[in-house]
């Protein structure tokens, strides 16, 4: 009986469908996908018409999106090109979203409901200038028109088809146009600007045909500084370049009159350098000094009055006209853990239309922007909703004193990702809230069985799908046996750390890092990378794991560094320190101390090495390995690769025993006139290789050259480092190197003539795969280089092995100069690449697949067997048996092997692979603007049952078999009895 069922079970295993790809109903079982838009720059509400209320937003990541105002969900979204920065957005005719982008040279209209582009027009002009977009309800030749000022030219563009109705150039070299104003109800336009930064110029233009009606200019003694603020349709306020004199200039009917007021007249204490804040509230403007934000009202003829001085971080919105001739604007101020939202009418500072206090999560930081919109309540009074953008780039909608929805758009700009294990499940503590009882378990499986036999009704199918997606198993907060449940810890550009659960992608915790917070000593902090600081294993299981966040106080590499240590279970920042040295490189060392804290070496800009953690124990461990630490640096600008080792303790005047001097071991100087470094790639530190030997046909063995010190460098001709098509094939080439980073030995060098970058490369085990552009064929190519250790090749002799005359036990070391051979092959590949990665499994037994992030923001899995230099047009029988695929000139793209299936990871930046505990499975996390996570089994899940394995079918079969045995037993007994009677 036991044997029988075992055989059956065996057959079950072998009968599993070989699924490499997904069925449509499996979407969402192992994968999740999240969409973001990034930090909002400008938002326009669309709430006038009946129907769904929307908000249109443009972001710093060059995205145009419309969001549902009720839920914050994305209706549609378009990602513009990297150079296509959005200058302005607006809604025209109530149905088109107008965007001005690319420095004012591209004007597009999008259909508001579905995001279809309606028209696009290209605007040129004589010179580079500020870009301004102004929607009017002006009608020229029966067309509603837009006024666009860009590139030194004023254009009137039809809303219907994007045609330019008239244009007017402002060619004067020194003219800087600041504002384009259309006084309400008039049919002329003012163009206001500075000439030679000391002349104020106004142009009055006929809006119907672009004719210049009047031009006035006035010279000032001082110089203007940048921005102007519009006080009314015929008055502007500006600051002079010293930031101490306020100018109010009115140009009523083309006559310029101005008033100068020193800032010190308005404020008792000297405010320091002031900056004008861009706002459009009638009668009021704001200036910002180091200490405060000051609101100033313009009364009558250039008389100024300070209405409020706020010392908190204050943000003001643009004006919103709520009824005929009445404007309102919003102010947001911080007070402890609350924010105060105040909406005031423009004409009366002292009264409030709305005053609300909302509790705000401290982890969101300060408010950066506010946009308001009004609605009419049932009692005919005005209600307001405010959209606020926070310091961590999140977007929140506030209405009636509460947060209606929030979006974590900081996740659209992830800098680095690492993973952390979840806590171990402790006995007696049930973490899962609802444990299924046996009956429900069985019921579920019967349903599943019905599903497999295609007997299920639509309701059943819905129930099955719900059950599969909502499986409590995958979102538990504990470690699982297969290692599928982990925390993905992501550092974002806003300096916030997020922990995402791999099961369903929810945010477990988030923390705005103190060390990456703007402060006096650190004005421009940026996050660099994340490292696993402490991974408790055996003897420190009580400790929580933690991650190290490395950052620096400025964009240059010699800015001082900052470090943070964050507990990865709770998100608490338990240590944060400002370093006295810069951080150029972070090297996690393969040594840990007694509490499993990993030793890290931080290399500063002066090539000193600093050891962390700064404990005596760490230094003891480090001393014993002192002579084994090597590192390298790549200087792209000068084309120099250098190798270093440690020398002595720092010789500086400060006795710092954790600081070490380095010595240069080797350097490779590439000729700067012919080669420019564009890409480097190294092996992942945590990659496991199962075996060094590779069995090939005819019982032969090849030994892979496996060294963790391998560096891949790709250089191109300096001329060809630009975009595709800028050079001819004759003057471009691509040179690739394989370098040993300990000795500086160039193991391999190869030139691809007529090729150019960009190069994407991945190095794993003993091979490197890279992608580049072949100008001769005008196609993308992918090449593979495999490197083999020839010095071990003669170990095939059995006698040598028996006698012991072999070198198999000698370690692979950079010290020994191994003889290597390389094999290489190239193939065409259809798409451009954004990222490339390779699957990573815990023991490295499973065969590898490449994960290719294509230009269409999809992730394609490609078997490494397609990139095998031993492929030939006609493989021999033995080679075929080995699994060598006949050579083709291009790599196949099989739609079913897109691991992102029908989804896009917009703005894809990188693909991260993490090994699960189960050997067959890799966890894949792709991030860009969107996040995508899935489990991927490169050689199918050979070591576990698939998710759709039907236990019920197995059970029923066993029951049926047992019944059959009993029936046959009874039958056979009866027959025997009859035989006896006979």
């Amino acid at each position, binding site marked *: 009986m036991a044997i029988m069922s075992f055989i059956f079970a065996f057959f079950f295993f072998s009968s599993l469908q070989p699924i490499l790809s997904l069925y449509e109903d499996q979407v969402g079982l192992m994968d999740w996908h999240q969409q973001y838009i990034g930090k909002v720059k400008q938002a326009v509400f669309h709430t006038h018409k009946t129907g769904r209320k929307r908000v249109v937003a443009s972001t710093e990541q060059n995205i145009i999106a419309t969001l549902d105002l009720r839920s914050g969900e994305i209706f549609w979204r378009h990602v513009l090109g990297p150079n296509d920065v959005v200058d302005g957005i607006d809604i025209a005719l109530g149905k088109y979203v107008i965007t001005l982008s690319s420095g004012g040279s591209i004007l597009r209209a999008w259909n508001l409901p579905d995001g279809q582009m309606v028209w696009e027009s290209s605007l040129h002009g004589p010179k580079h200038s500020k870009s301004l977009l102004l929607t009017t309800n002006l009608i020229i030749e029966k067309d509603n028109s837009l006024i666009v000022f860009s590139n030194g030219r004023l254009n009137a563009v039809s809303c219907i088809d994007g045609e330019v109705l008239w244009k007017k150039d402002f060619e004067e070299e020194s003219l800087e146009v600041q504002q384009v104003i259309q006084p309400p109800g008039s049919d002329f336009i003012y163009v206001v600007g500075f000439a030679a930064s000391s002349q104020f110029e106004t142009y009055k233009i006929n809006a119907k045909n672009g004719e210049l009606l009047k031009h006035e200019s006035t010279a000032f003694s001082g110089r203007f500084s940048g921005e102007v603020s519009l006080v009314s349709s015929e008055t502007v306020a500006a600051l002079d370049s010293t930031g101490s004199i306020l100018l109010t200039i009115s140009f009523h009917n083309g006559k310029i009159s101005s008033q100068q007021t020193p800032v010190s007249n308005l404020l008792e204490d000297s405010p320091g350098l002031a900056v004008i804040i861009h706002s459009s509230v009638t009668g009021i403007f704001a200036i910002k000094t180091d200490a405060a934000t000051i609101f100033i009202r313009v009364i009558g003829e250039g008389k100024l009055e300070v209405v409020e001085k706020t010392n908190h971080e204050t943000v003001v919105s643009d004006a919103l006209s709520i009824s005929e001739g009445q404007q309102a604007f919003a102010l947001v101020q911080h007070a402890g853990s609350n924010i105060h939202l105040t909406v005031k009418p423009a004409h009366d500072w002292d009264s409030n239309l709305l005053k609300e206090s909302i509790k705000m999560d401290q982890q969101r930081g300060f408010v950066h922007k506010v946009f308001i919109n009004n609605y009419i309540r049932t009692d005919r009074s005005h209600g307001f909703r405010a959209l606020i953008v926070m310091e961590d780039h999140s977007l929140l909608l506030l209405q009636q004193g509460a947060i209606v929805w929030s979006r974590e758009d900081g996740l659209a700009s992830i800098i680095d990702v690492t993973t952390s294990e979840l806590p171990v499940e402790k006995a007696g503590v049930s973490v899962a809230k609802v444990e299924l009882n046996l009956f429900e378990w069985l019921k579920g499986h019967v349903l599943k069985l019905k599903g497999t036999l295609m007997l299920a009704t639509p309701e059943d199918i819905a129930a099955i799908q719900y059950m599969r997606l909502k499986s409590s198993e995958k979102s538990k907060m504990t470690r699982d046996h297969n290692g599928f449940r982990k925390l993905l810890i992501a550092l974002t550009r806003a300096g916030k750390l997020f922990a995402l659960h791999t099961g369903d992608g929810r945010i477990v915790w988030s923390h705005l890092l103190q060390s990456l917070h703007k402060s006096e000593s650190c004005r421009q902090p940026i996050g660099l990378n994340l490292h696993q600081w402490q991974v408790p294993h055996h003897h420190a299981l009580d400790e929580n794991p933690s991650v190290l966040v490395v950052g620096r106080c400025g964009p240059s590499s010699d800015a001082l560094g900052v470090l943070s240590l964050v507990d990865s279970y709770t998100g608490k920042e338990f240590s944060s320190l400002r370093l006295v040295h810069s951080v150029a490189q972070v090297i996690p060392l393969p040594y840990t101390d007694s509490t499993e804290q990993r030793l890290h070496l931080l290399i500063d800009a002066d090539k000193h090495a600093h050891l962390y953690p700064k404990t005596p124990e760490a230094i003891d461990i480090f001393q014993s390995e002192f002579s084994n630490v090597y590192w390298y640096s790549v200087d792209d600008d000068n084309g120099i690769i250098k190798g270093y080792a440690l020398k002595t303790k720092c010789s500086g005047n400060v006795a710092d025993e954790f600081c070490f001097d380095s010595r240069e071991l080797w350097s490779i100087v590439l000729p700067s006139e012919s080669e420019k470094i564009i890409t480097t790639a190294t092996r992942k530190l945590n990659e496991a290789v199962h075996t060094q030997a590779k069995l090939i046909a005819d019982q032969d063995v090849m030994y892979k050259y496996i060294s963790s010190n391998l560096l891949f460098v790709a250089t191109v001709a300096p001329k060809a480092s630009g975009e595709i098509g800028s050079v001819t094939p004759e003057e471009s080439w691509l040179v690739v190197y394989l370098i040993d980073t300990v000795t500086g030995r160039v193991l391999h060098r190869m030139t691809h003539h007529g090729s150019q970058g960009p190069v994407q490369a991945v190095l794993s085990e003993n091979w490197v795969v890279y992608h580049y552009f072949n100008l001769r064929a005008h196609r993308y190519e992918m090449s593979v280089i495999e490197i083999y250790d020839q010095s071990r090749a003669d170990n095939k002799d059995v006698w040598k092995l028996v006698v012991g005359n072999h070198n198999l036990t000698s370690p692979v070391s950079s010290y020994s100069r191994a003889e290597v051979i390389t094999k290489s092959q190239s193939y065409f590949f259809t798409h451009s690449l954004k990222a490339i990665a390779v699957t990573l499994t815990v023991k490295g037994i499973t065969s590898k697949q490449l994960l290719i992030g294509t*230009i269409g923001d999809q992730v394609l899995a490609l078997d490494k067997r397609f990139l095998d230099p031993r492929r030939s047009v006609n493989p021999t029988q033995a080679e075929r048996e080995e699994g060598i695929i006949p050579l083709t000139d291009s790599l196949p793209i099989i739609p079913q092997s897109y691991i992102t299936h029908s989804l896009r990871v917009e703005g894809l930046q990188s693909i991260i692979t993490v090994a699960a505990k189960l050997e067959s499975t890799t966890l894949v996390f792709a991030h860009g603007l969107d996040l995508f996570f899935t489990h991927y089994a490169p050689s199918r899940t050979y070591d576990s049952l698939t998710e759709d394995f039907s236990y019920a079918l197995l059970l029923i079969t066993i029951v049926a078999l047992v019944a059959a045995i009993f029936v046959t037993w009874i039958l056979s007994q009866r027959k025997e009895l009859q035989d006896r009677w006979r």
Partner: protein
Amino acid sequence: MAFSCKNSSKFNGFSGCIKMVMVGTSAIMMQRRTLAMEASLCVKKSKKKGADSVTRPNSQISAAMAAVTPLLLLLLLSSAPSFSSGSRNAYNINGRVKIPQGLGTKGYALPGRMSNVKVLLNGGQNITFLRPDGYFSFHNIPAGTHLIEVSAIGYFFSPVRVDVSARNPGKVQAALTENRKGLSELVLEPLREEQYYEIREPFSIMSLLKSPMGLMVGFMLAVAFLMPKLVENMDPEEMRRAQEEMRSQGVPSLSSLLPGGARN
């Protein structure tokens, strides 16, 4: 300016050229440039007439300018491309993406599918979108060879090599890079549809029977029902002998294996 006047009289046949030369001022650089422009225009015109006449204007010019240094000729050739368009070195590429009806009827029929199509130039350096009729354009593109890719979920498009010629503005040569097929006009059509999901086989008796489980059950049934038939057809003498043989060897029957069978 003597020679330039001579020039104009010689080129009476080329009206376009005359104007240009007349514009030429006394500044020598300016003059050279105008001449260069003129030459390029002339070359273009003559090309239409036939290949044999291509050299004619050039030789005429050089003959007329025997007094001028040979450097001028060099300038003539080198500066020709930059003049062939009004806005220098910037061209527009216009094209169309056409998704044939009938394709894409299943699956990804998301609302506004055309709005999710992106057209990318040179690996994402420029990105543009489709108008409702499928047309797209790239503005301000320098002359040279470019690569256009179309990203559309559900379709496989071949990248297109586009040559923007400086000599013939507006003339765009295009070829699919996948199959090297030339395109007479820039109309991009998907090479094939992409199906991202495996299709579940509908339930059928045959597939159940073909599965290992089905085969096993089939085999068992065959054994259970066909074997007795075979036994029946056997010669009774032989059967008895075989049974005796079996008994002597002590092969247990199924009933004796089970607890109840121990009785006999």
